[in-house]
């Protein structure tokens, strides 16, 4: 394996007295899909903008393609594809013109851009909308166009900030499919998300971020293995507040978490656990048996749920 694509040591970003990113370390290798998972305000976007060389580093070290973003920002940006959180599409231009002019920003000749535009319109399923004005597109279409735009320069690395936030479930699945195809082609992707299903579906490796710091790092399976049990039994009782009721479940599973509206039991087998609950004479109002996921990892690491 060659040099890592991105390497951060004690990377810090401060805005005035507020520390958005607090001395984080991570390494991203060529060909992997790397995720930053965390709630809003965890420092994901600030980290992304530093990688994208549009936000100066306050402290620590960051190398992208082995280059320093503070010194060689332009060279880094020339090799990056960026999908910002807000699409930032050019609303005054058509779909095709958005792609073309973006290619021109990279000083690509029009003869190179033209076939790529056709190819990317196909990839983004926007061929029929090629002459439409951007403002007439749906949210999902705009997002796909933003991704297509980021690919116009054949970037070595694509960074996507919250790629599916604000989309309906159907549009999200179309988008995941497109990102999955990119991954199949061997692209290196960095994705931030506060959706655990997105992180589980797409990421080879991820870091869990909270309050500007990295709480854990690993593949989705490793993280679940390390910080949760295989299965979870969710129990809802017929009470207003579940606080303090975890004592009732003592001895079942390896750990319990109490949320306002339910109690989570971390167990090997949810079926067996439910029998044990019933054996204690507890009659739940509702139960859910499921496999543990990244949401549980996050809850365990921070004591809070990811999406409120």
């Amino acid at each position, binding site marked *: 394996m060659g040099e890592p694509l991105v390497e951060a040591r004690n990377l810090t970003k401060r805005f005035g007295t507020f520390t958005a990113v607090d001395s984080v370390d991570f390494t991203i290798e060529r060909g992997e899909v790397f995720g930053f998972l965390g709630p809003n305000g965890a420092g994901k976007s600030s980290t992304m903008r530093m990688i994208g060389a549009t936000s100066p580093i306050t402290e620590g070290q960051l190398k992208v393609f082995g280059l320093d973003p503070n010194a060689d920002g332009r060279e880094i940006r*020339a090799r990056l594809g960026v999908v*910002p959180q807000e699409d930032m599409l*050019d609303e005054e231009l058509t779909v095709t013109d958005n792609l073309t002019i973006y290619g021109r920003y990279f000083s690509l000749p029009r003869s190179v851009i033209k076939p790529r535009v056709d190819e990317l319109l196909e990839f983004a399923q926007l061929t029929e909308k090629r002459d439409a004005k951007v403002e007439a597109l749906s949210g999902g279409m705009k997002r796909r166009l933003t991704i297509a735009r980021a690919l116009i320069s054949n970037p070595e690395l694509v960074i996507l900030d919250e790629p599916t936030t604000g989309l309906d479930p159907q549009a999200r699945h179309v988008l995941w499919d497109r990102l999955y195809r990119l991954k199949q082609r061997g692209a290196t992707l960095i994705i931030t998300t506060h959706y655990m299903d997105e992180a589980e579906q797409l990421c080879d490796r991820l870091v869990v971020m909270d309050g500007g710091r990295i709480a854990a790092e690993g593949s989705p399976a490793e993280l679940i293995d390390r910080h949760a049990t295989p299965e979870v039994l969710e129990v809802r009782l017929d009470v207003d507040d579940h606080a303090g009721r975890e004592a009732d479940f003592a001895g079942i599973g390896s750990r319990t978490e109490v949320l306002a509206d339910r109690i989570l039991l971390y167990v090997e087998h949810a079926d067996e656990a439910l029998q044990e609950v019933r054996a204690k004479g507890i009659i739940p109002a509702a139960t859910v048996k499921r496999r543990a996921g990244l949401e549980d990892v996050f809850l365990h690491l921070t004591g809070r749920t990811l999406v409120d």
Partner: protein
Amino acid sequence: MTPTESRAMGARVIPSVVRPTYRAQHVLERNWIASGAFWKVMIAGFFEPVFYLLAIGVGLGAMIGDITLADGTSVPYAAFVAPGMLAASAMNAAVMESTFNVFFKFKYGRVYQAMLATPIGAGDIAVGEIGWSLFRGFVYSATFLAVMGVMGLTESWWAIGALLGTTLIGLAFGAVGMAAVTFMRSWQDFDLITFVTLPLFLFSATFYPIEVYPPWLQTVATFSPLYHGAELVRGFALGRFDPSMLTNALVLASMATVGAIIAVRRLGRLLLS
């Protein structure tokens, strides 16, 4: 490299992010595509001078007759006022383009943020936008001048040199307008622009020679950049050259330089946080 070294280096080279690097033409290209129907721009550029010249030059001119210049010669009022109008229209076009349009793209279109994710830097954006405002202004002014020529308000082919004056006006007001827009927070702040440009428009030797003022007020008028623009344009249009035109050009060029430096610096700081 140690972190300290990297920080010290970073501190030194951040301005390079702001330095223009011959990519400003892509910003111009973007605006060219966005302007779409260029004939609309041309038509606006054509009717504005025709209206002004008919109303003020021909209409008012009929009542005023000839006007005596500083050198003692006299010209019809329409021929006197037309270069003033031309200078004022160059100023207005540059101010509009560099303030309203830039503010919109900056705040709402987020066009610049998208550009900055590419190799384009803040300096390229500033240079590109000022360049675009110059280009549009040039088209406007050339149309205006052609109309003046047709109406017989120019003295000789030297009048084409007036475009040098309008270009300098465009550069000066475009750069300062762009610097000013980086300080604007909301649309309300734009009232200030009218507050500044309106008196410039009215009192800068546009409608009458400043020699009608008492000496102290003449001195005040020389602080108006549009006065220098109007003098320069008029000198060419009427074919009456004076060494003071060099000063006029120098004033506008200095204003352009200072405005451009502030615009590039401020834009870089605002966009890259």
